[in-house]
């Protein structure tokens, strides 16, 4: 029952994911950014990117724990919107902040560990974004799923990026804890236990959904 009623709101993922960008655009247009506006934009693209990434790995566990199959379909838009924010975030760094001075950018990447892991997260996201379509899924077959398991490396890297740049580690640690729980819920033992709890025999269903995605 709850399954059906919540599903009706799944479309909200689009306006909600775009809301931070819209607010950022409005504040930019109205000159409401802080006097260190580059930092402002970095923050307001980085945080949505991280939130969306964590939400994207929450979809499968939501299905595991609550049996919300519809949530699985949100992985793609959440992941792609996350990629959009990461691209804007990276563009802020390279173009706005460093004026495309590639020498200086390379030095920063090489010497700041938080930028190094952020760059790794970005580079790993690129193939996922490029293959987030039916054609690529068909072409890659079984490998598509293997490739997309990369997201479980990307999110911890992004959390580490946030942790290493933070003055106050607590928000990053919260994201880290959430990521940890979500990763644990991927463990086959737990998945089986949850589906058995929900309804006996559901594990067969699960496997079907899995291969279908």
């Amino acid at each position, binding site marked *: 029952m709850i399954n059906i009623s919540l599903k009706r709101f799944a479309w909200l993922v689009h306006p909600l994911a775009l809301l931070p960008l819209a607010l950022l655009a409005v504040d930019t247009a109205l000159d409401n950014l*802080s*006097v260190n506006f*580059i*930092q402002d934009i970095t923050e307001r693209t980085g945080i949505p990117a991280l939130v969306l990434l964590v939400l994207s790995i929450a979809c499968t566990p939501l299905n595991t724990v609550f049996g919300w199959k519809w949530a699985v379909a949100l992985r793609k838009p959440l992941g792609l919107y996350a990629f959009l924010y990461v691209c804007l975030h990276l563009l802020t760094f390279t173009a706005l*902040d*460093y004026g495309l001075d590639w020498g200086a950018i390379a030095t920063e990447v090489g010497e700041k560990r*938080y930028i190094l892991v952020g760059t790794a997260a970005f580079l790993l996201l690129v193939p996922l974004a490029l293959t987030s379509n039916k054609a690529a899924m068909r072409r890659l077959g079984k490998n598509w799923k293997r490739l997309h398991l990369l997201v479980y490396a990307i999110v911890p890297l992004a959390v580490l990026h946030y942790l290493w740049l933070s003055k106050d*580690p607590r928000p990053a640690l919260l994201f880290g804890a959430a990521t940890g729980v979500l990763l644990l819920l991927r463990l086959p033992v737990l998945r089986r236990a949850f589906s058995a709890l929900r309804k006996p025999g559901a594990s067969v269903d699960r496997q079907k959904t899995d291969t279908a995605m």
Partner: protein
Amino acid sequence: MNARRRTWPQIAASEITPEHIYRSRRQFLRAAGASIGAGLLVACAPSDGSSAAPTPAADATSRLPYGVGTVDELGKAANSFEQITTYNNYYEFSTGKEEVHTLASGFKTEPWTVAVDGLVGKPQSFDIDDLRTMFDQEERVYRLRCVEGWSMVIPWQGFALSKLLKAVEPSAAAKFVRFESVSRPEEMPGQNDIFSFQWPYVEALRLDEAMNDLALVVTGLYGKPLPAQNGAPLRLALPWKYGFKSAKAIVKITLTAEQPATFWTTANAAEYGFYGNVNPDVDHPRWSQRSERRIGELSRQRTLMFNGYESSVAALYQGMDLAVNY
């Protein structure tokens, strides 16, 4: 002379926000007098300062190591009052720089006394009102380089720290000066945070650094009393050091024989050294020290050794390995 005097306010008026109109005639004359042939000419210089050299004699004898009016000695215009007072790194209130000015709006800066004690001949407690009048108040335009990689140009008012220290007569054994900031958790939300630092904020200098003429005790900004978010009623401005060295809301100054533990060396010794000198060659794990973002400008600029005050302070560190003593 007259021609020069006329030139200066014109430049200031065109360069800068209306805030500069604060200057009283007397202050103006004093500042102009101090800057003849120096700050005056520098103020007229193009921003790279390269073609602005006054006559060699004037350059050698009277060039001030800092700016006057609303332009720094390199010819860069000061940041606006709004920029300086809405973007503040002040952990006692918050780690969020944009919210400090709101959180600090109810902070009480009167009455206020500053105790100066330790290895001194005349330990004393100064009332803030006396401090504002005891010593000649000067206006100096300093660059402020934050360790986080941003910077501003700020027209401070205050007096040389050396004057205050001389007044209490440091004893021969005194080698360091420790500055303690106020502890007032009921008015400073950041001090209540459970993920907390060791309050109060403490900073320190070697005595010879503290006696350097650039070390300024600040009481005002843009001709107005110092706003709470900028460290009222009394803070330091040490322009050759990262901003964290310039303690705010100081209540106690103690001269010591041993190097004091400071807030940041206690909290994170790997990232913050005792000296905190601006140095593009010594990196910080998070923020770029090679370049900086000047608030109000789009493109980054190279960070200068000792923030551009090398000629005034380099001698203090002669023979020291600055990569070790960062």
